[in-house]
């Protein structure tokens, strides 16, 4: 059942679980719980497909380093940001959950907690396989390894792929054009009792449920919690960490490399196969140097000027062996930064609610990761006799690398992977959500999505988000069964 709230108020809604947000995480949770027989209300702020009018509500302020507008990185419609997803998938590495050197105590879960959900998450995303061994380099480089990325081909658009299933499932009610504007907190229990959603056209609904799941996407989840805190005396999530440790993947051109005798040290970024082999950091180098994880790939360039430059610093004989080259690109993990923050702007949307203010901050540690990623590749070229690397001056200088962005025109400084802001923790004093993605302060409110990430690794996050959504569904199943 799909109901457009813009066409009228559906009346009071009662469900076992109210899922707010119809993107990858929200649809995954809704359908998983529905198959177990629970009544699920899925409330989507946008329409069935992206529209300019709906995107207007995602406008906000970018005040930090992020060069992607907040109304362009996210899509407010059924299917959410899967509507512009590129289909890249990879699990987080096991050590990503234990980067105590980056995030204090590390995640409260491990890779083994998510492993049981890998195959199903891959199937939901349309990836035929997402498992394969990462391999050491043939040259036994201890700091770099080959890894594999997997692709959904074509990328799964969740509204198109699962709209019919949502409509046909009798115990799921989907409510479109329904922007959740308030939450009612039970003062005695501290639990969420109901949420209210409105359409600009005048329709509204109130949904009462035993459990509530925020699945609006990282930025909107945080904005919603901040707005609810404002309405409820700060009691929805009193953690001072709410909105903090916002992370993106650093997406940067590190330099250009010249290769010798037909060597191909990196895959091109514009023609990935499935799976595609990349070079990436090893755990060893990350821990030894305190770096964010990184992976490397290349883009084509005209090598004439590059060889001219190389000729100025090495022998002509060496240069005569150069047969090609490329631009070195990297996707890197950002070190969690408390000052990197999602908050509320002073400007309101059409519902009179504060728009979001995004302040993505990077620091010298991130610049260090970018520089070391380049240096490790350059050393690899030398050790393996493959070629030489010229490092971009801004990366070499190690300061404000993203302000000197020089990558492909279509590859901005931030990768569009919005993570953190409600990070998981072992204790309430160290985060916003517990190991089951439940808000510490509110017994029946959960987060599905990237906001709970404590560190990001270098992997594109959608696969992990889907694994987490499946695991959350099982947690809700357990709680619903036990009353």
């Amino acid at each position, binding site marked *: 059942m799909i109901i457009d709230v813009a066409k009228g108020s559906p009346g009071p809604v009662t469900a076992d679980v109210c899922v707010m947000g119809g993107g990858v995480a929200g649809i995954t949770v809704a359908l998983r719980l529905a198959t177990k027989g629970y009544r699920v209300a899925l409330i989507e702020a946008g329409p069935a*497909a*992206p529209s300019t009018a709906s995107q207007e509500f995602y406008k906000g302020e970018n005040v930090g380093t992020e060069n*992607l*507008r907040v109304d*362009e*990185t996210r*899509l407010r*419609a059924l299917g959410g*940001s899967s*509507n*512009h*997803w*590129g*289909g*890249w998938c990879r699990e987080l590495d096991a050590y990503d959950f234990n980067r105590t050197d980056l995030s204090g105590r590390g995640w409260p879960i491990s890779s083994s907690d998510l492993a049981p959900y890998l195959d199903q998450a891959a199937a939901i995303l349309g990836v035929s396989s997402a498992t*394969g061994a990462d*391999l050491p*380099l*043939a*040259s036994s480089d201890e700091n770099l390894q*080959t890894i*594999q990325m997997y692709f959904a*081909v*074509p*990328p799964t658009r969740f509204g198109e792929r699962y709209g019919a299933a949502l409509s046909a499932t009798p115990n799921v009610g989907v409510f479109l054009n329904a922007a959740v504007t308030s939450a009612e907190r039970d003062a005695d229990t501290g639990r969420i009792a109901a949420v209210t959603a409105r359409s600009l056209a005048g329709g509204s609904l109130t949904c009462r449920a035993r459990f509530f799941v925020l699945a609006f996407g990282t930025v909107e989840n945080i904005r919603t919690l901040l707005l609810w805190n404002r309405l409820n005396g700060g009691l929805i999530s009193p953690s001072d960490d709410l909105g903090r440790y916002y992370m993106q993947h650093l*997406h940067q051109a590190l330099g250009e490399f010249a290769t010798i005798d037909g*060597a*191909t*040290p990196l895959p091109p970024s*514009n*023609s*990935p*196969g499935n*799976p*595609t*082999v990349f070079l990436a950091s090893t755990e060893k180098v990350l821990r030894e140097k305190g770096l964010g994880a990184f992976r490397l790939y290349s883009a084509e360039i005209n090598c004439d000027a590059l060889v001219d430059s190389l*000729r*100025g*610093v090495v*022998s*002509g004989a*060496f240069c005569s062996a150069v047969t090609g080259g490329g631009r070195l690109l990297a*996707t890197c993990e950002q070190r969690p930064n408390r000052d990197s923050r999602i908050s509320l702007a002073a400007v309101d949307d059409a519902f009179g609610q504060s728009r979001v203010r995004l302040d993505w901050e990077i620091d010298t540690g991130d610049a260090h990761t970018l520089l070391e990623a380049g240096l490790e590749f*350059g*050393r690899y070229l*030398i*050790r*393996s*006799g*493959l070629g030489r690397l*010229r*490092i971009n*001056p801004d990366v070499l200088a190690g300061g404000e690398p993203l302000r000197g962005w020089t990558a*492909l025109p*279509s590859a*901005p400084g931030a*990768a*569009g*992977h919005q993570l953190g802001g409600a990070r998981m923790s072992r204790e309430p004093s160290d985060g916003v959500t517990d190991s089951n993605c439940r808000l510490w302060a509110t017994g029946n409110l959960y987060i599905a999505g990237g906001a709970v990430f404590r560190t990001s690794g270098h992997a*594109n996050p959608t696969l992990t988000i889907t694994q987490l959504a499946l695991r959350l569904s099982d947690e809700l199943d357990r709680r619903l069964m036990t009353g």
Partner: protein
Amino acid sequence: MSGNSASGAPRSGLSSAPPVNRRSLLSGTAALVVASVSFTRRPTSELRTVIVDGWLLASTDVATPPGK
């Protein structure tokens, strides 16, 4: 790295084309292996580098005067 705008969607500004050419893992790995084993590896402990005009070079690269 996240993706392309869907038809009718607002411009995302994001990158990452979906895969267009299927190339097997083996061929990708093989390319790396073949390229690597063609040259003698220098152990990390023995590698000494210098940076000249942005180029990361082995110290032995610059034993010969530039441009010669």
